[in-house]
């Protein structure tokens, strides 16, 4: 059987950064911020639209030049994330998809997700996305309460979301995710429950329900004292409502923050938790292929240099070099632009297998562990598993090892125990 690959494509542009966001994203006009004068030449035309077009060109080149490396792989999912991918024109999206399709083996039943933000798509665009092959849409709503949206710096209101949602449905998308958030400033259990009701009434196939995390360096984190956040008790109640209510509406929880109708679990995300191979294209994108993790340069300047240098060295058909990269990861000039690369040891692989796998409600398989690592899970983690079972954070039923509901609540505590000294 052919090896499977997932592709992540990062679009770092957004209209305006949300106050809680710590992703690598920025308004398109700010690409040149922090660049040296010489390198600005790479982006010499100026307008935000030109910046985006330049970036799409770089993506196009990176996707093409990497194709040789992955020619033995079959692509089972593609995820266009951001930022706000829907800031790109339908034409640009279609060009990126075309590049992937013409250079990679894409499976018949591939899942192709595109993230969208309300208010960033025009009439007629969703139809074009479908034509490009996109078959799943993920819309960032976060809250159905306009006041809550405003407080966290979202650019849209609930009405704008509804309009986007309708457009997407009208265009014919049959697999839609809606992102919502709990523990927002000024939110209470009643308003959160209203959001849940409104969202489920729209019957999306998938719901991601996150708790707000205050990430260091974000405006919300820096100014947290100016906001009033739900109490610990309220937050716990929101979690309870989420589980109970979504279950009653037919959504099953399959990961800490993810709920799906039957048959609609997100294939792409499960690749991350089940440690499938994935490659990331674009600014700052992360990859893991054959137990090597790396990430792309996270400044536009270095990204452009990286692509240009790789092209010069590998050419468009650097098969030998690509084979080397596959085994050893990047090296040489282009590696100089790679901010992070790590060949995972067997122990690190085991750790990841556990702490990523246990994020999923179904947990991990003992048989699969033994198959991958050649030793029974009891021999490696027997003590930890027993301890967590005694604490009722983990259950073992047959082959499956999974966290209990309480275990998922305190999963950091449980997962940390699977790390080696």
């Amino acid at each position, binding site marked *: 059987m052919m090896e499977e690959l997932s592709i*992540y494509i990062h679009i770092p542009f957004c209209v305006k950064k949300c106050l809680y966001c710590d992703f690598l994203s920025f308004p398109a006009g700010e690409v040149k911020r922090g660049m040296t004068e010489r390198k600005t030449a790479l982006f010499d035309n100026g307008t935000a639209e030109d910046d985006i077009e330049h970036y799409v060109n770089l993506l196009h080149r990176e996707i093409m030049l990497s194709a040789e490396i992955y020619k033995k792989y079959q692509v089972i999912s593609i995820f266009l994330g951001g930022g706000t991918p829907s800031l790109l024109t339908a034409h640009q999206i279609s060009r990126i998809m075309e590049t992937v399709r013409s250079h990679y083996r894409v499976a018949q039943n591939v899942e192709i997700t595109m993230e969208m933000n309300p208010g960033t798509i025009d009439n007629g665009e969703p139809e074009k996305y479908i034509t490009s092959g996109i078959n799943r849409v993920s819309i960032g709503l976060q809250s159905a309460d306009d006041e809550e949206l405003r407080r966290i710096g979202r650019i849209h209101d609930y009405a704008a979301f509804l309009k986007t949602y309708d457009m997407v449905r009208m265009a014919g998308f049959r697999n839609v995710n809606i992102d919502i958030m709990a523990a927002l400033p000024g939110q209470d259990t009643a308003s959160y429950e209203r959001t849940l009701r409104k969202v489920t009434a729209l019957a999306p196939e998938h719901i991601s329900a*996150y*708790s*707000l*995390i205050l990430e260091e360096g974000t405006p919300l984190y820096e100014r947290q004292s100016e906001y009033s956040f739900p109490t*610990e008790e309220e*937050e*716990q109640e929101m*979690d309870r409502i989420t589980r109970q209510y979504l279950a009653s509406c037919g959504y099953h929880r399959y990961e*800490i*923050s993810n709920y799906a109708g039957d048959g609609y679990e997100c294939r792409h*995300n499960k690749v*991350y*938790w089940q440690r499938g191979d*994935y490659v*990331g294209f674009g600014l*700052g*994108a*992360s*990859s*893991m292929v054959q137990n090597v*993790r790396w*990430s792309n340069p996270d400044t536009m300047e270095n990204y452009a240099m990286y692509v240009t240098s790789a092209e010069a060295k590998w050419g468009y058909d650097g098969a030998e070099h690509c084979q080397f990269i596959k085994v050893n990861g990047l090296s040489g000039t282009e590696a100089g632009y790679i901010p*992070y690369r*790590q060949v995972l040891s067997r122990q690190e692989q085991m*750790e*990841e297998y556990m*702490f*990523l796998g246990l*994020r999923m409600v179904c947990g991990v398989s003992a048989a699969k562990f033994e198959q991958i690592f050649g030793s029974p899970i009891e021999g490696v983690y027997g003590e930890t598993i027993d301890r967590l079972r005694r*604490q009722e*954070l983990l259950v073992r039923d047959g082959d499956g090892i999974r966290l209990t509901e309480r275990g*998922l*609540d*305190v*999963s*950091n*505590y449980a*997962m*940390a*125990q699977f*790390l080696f*000294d």
Partner: protein
Amino acid sequence: MAAIDQSKIRNFCIVAHIDHGKSTLADRIIEKTGLLTSREMQAQVLDNMELERERGITIKAQAVRIVYNAKDGNEYIFNLIDTPGHVDFNYEVSRSLAACDGAILVVDAAQGIEAQTLANVYLALDHDLDVFPVINKIDLPSAEPERVKNEIEDVIGIEAQDAPMISAKNGIGIEEVLEAVVEKIPAPKGSPDNPLQALIFDSVYDSYKGVIVFCRIMEGRVSKGTPIRMMATGATAEVVEVGYFGAGQFIPCEELSAGMVGYLTASIKNVKDTAVGDTVTDVNNPCAEPLPGYKKVNSMVYCGMYPADGAKYPDLRDALEKLQLNDASLHYEPETSIALGFGFRCGFLGLLHLEIIQERLEREYNLDLVTTAPGVIYRVHKTDGTMIELTNPSNLPDPAQIDYMEEPVVSAEIMVTTEFIGSIMQLCQERRGRYISTEYIEATRALLKYELPLNEIIYDFFDALKSRSRGYASFDYELKGYEESKLVKLDILINHDEVDALSFIVHADSAYERGRKMCEKLKDEIPRHLFEIPIQAAVGGKIIARETVKAMRKDVLAKCYGGDITRKKKLLEKQKEGKKRMRQVGNVEIPQSAFMSVLKLDDN
């Protein structure tokens, strides 16, 4: 070597309150006598331990021999003996003073006399030293030299009108001080022909020479080959080398004779054999009596010291062993704590001494320590008539076996400007002080005398004193004796398990307050667990205070996708690393900082 004319020797020390400029004056004297060039001078020559310089205090007494060409045309030998400036080292101070024939009293022209100045001057006068004052920092805008002179005359009763007016910092008036040393400090007495009688005033351990004994020869003579005996400890040895103190170095010479200050080495392995205050004599021609004033130095304050990393226990033991080579007043013995594992119960002269040892262990020996609350030595009188000295609260006998307990009490003198008398008296009252008297030194300053239990002043009394007097109060104390007291053992229970390392002895009336504060502090220190953790303070099994660490509700990363994995793993690693540094008591993990935090209960 030409014989040294005894009449041209001056043995003296400088007494002063902290910060009044003692070390600076010593530097200037050494500089003026030409022994060192300015370039060679470290900022403060006498304080040659790094730690001493940083703290600005002198820990160990040291001495220096310098040569001064006086205006009368003669060459004089000055032995300047430095004395520790803190009450913890009172006994060492007294022995250093006994090695001198006179003292320079340095008084700050702005601050005037302070409690410690008085204590040191009285100590000097008690040793029959001739004391003459110098007024320092006369170039400060706030200097009031005339007022200070009058104060010296009124309070101490020594002539001060012709006192040299100096600025040690700026080198003003130093010549005058040197001339005054020649004129006002008497030459030593004693005959080289009498049996050897030498006073040990300090010693240091050197890994090549063994113990280097600092001594003042009162009678007789000593040279290489002299068989000597330490009269109090009984240790005997044969002298290998004698010499005097250059600036920061030992300079060997042929002989030390009556009136001289110098050192001797005799391949002695342990400073315990050369106790400060002991008398050295010649085995073949012993003196009839030892010199007066020797006493065995006892630890006043005890605490448990544990390595933060249990595997470092042997390192801690080695480090303590090495420190003790140079510090006979440091005591330690192994002990075991359920919470902290293997460590040592250590005894110190006082809290400053404790802090210095702790810092040296951490800095010079690179050890990470967990220290338990310092306590004093209690006397537990049992119903069977026996008495035990209690240094570790965990060893308190069953209450049924205790007849009564005693605690050490000190006589304290506090110098304070009159506006703060009220608040200082209130502080002493809060610390169970017994009022003795108030003496007005001048219209605006008074000397308060109190008797205070030692355990009330070892923690933070000095800080409290400073803050309640805006820094103006000064303080000195000496051990008075033991008194019966209503003492109880306060235990801390974490999740119903007693944590031995947190137990301490406290007066019954303060038990509730201390217990409550301990619980509050610990509540902030102990991280949430999967279950709720009660933190209780108990006296004799009765709970007197309680706090609760709530159970962990949620500890989860909401998002973990492709780009997050490395970062999230680091987060989990940090969490695991944090756990490793905790101490397990029952099924509760207690961070080491919790044990330390309870030492500072009053800084809110």
